[in-house]
């Protein structure tokens, strides 16, 4: 199944990066949400795909059966999902506040920190 996953991961990355390069922060936000999916799926697939057998040790045995899914990428991805979500929420609020303050969601018009005609740095000491 890995090639199919690779295609989906590629598609996720393409869409997310395409959205990232937009000037509208709402699209950038959606790009960030998709990017986390892309990366999670990348890690998940790199740990190899197994069908339907969760990494849970069955009753009466002491070790995981060989047919079970690889638990390691799952552990990595699980925390990544939650952190990506908190980060997404932060970005969302940041964009929201920026829109309230600056009245625009176009990144080209957000020039408070880097004004268009910034004066040259002072030459004195």
């Amino acid at each position, binding site marked *: 199944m890995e090639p199919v996953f690779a295609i989906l991961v590629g598609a996720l990355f393409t869409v997310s990066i395409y959205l990232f390069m937009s000037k509208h922060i709402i699209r950038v936000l959606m790009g960030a949400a998709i990017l986390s999916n892309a990366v999670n799926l990348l890690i998940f697939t790199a740990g190899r795909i197994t069908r339907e057998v969760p990494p*849970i040790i069955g009753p009466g045995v002491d070790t995981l059966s060989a047919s079970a899914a690889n638990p390691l990428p799952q552990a990595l991805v*699980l*925390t990544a999902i*939650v952190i990506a*979500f*908190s980060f997404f*929420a932060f970005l*969302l609020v940041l964009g929201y506040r920026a829109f309230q303050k600056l009245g625009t969601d176009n990144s080209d018009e957000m020039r408070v920190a880097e004004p268009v005609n910034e004066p040259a740095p002072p030459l004195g000491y």
Partner: protein
Amino acid sequence: MRTVIFRSIAPYLTSLMVLFSIFVLLRGHNLPGGGFIGGLIAASALAIYGIACGVAPVRRAIHFHPMAISAFGLFLGAGAGVLSVFASVPFMTGLWTYPTLFGVELALSSVLVFDIGVYLVVVGAIASIALALEERDRD
């Protein structure tokens, strides 16, 4: 979205979801579940309650500020790690004890305490974000 039906069932739905989240949390060590998932379920429950009945009732219902819950969770998680100091083992080593209560053997461990910490952090932080966003809705 504040229909009568939604408002009426929201408290029950929320209670059920919180109960379910605790169930998911506690069984997490042996079956699918755990602190992260449980925390997210509980946070969603609070968010639903907030959408249905307004944020103020939610804040009253959980009594503490969500970030305080989150901070307490982090404290608990770190504390579970520090516990291992008293057993002279490296930081974060799992410690287990099996007390028998009313004839039932319970498996208590520092790992469980840590997972509860994770649960509280996730509930607190995510609920705090969700509630804050819902609150801004009305100003």
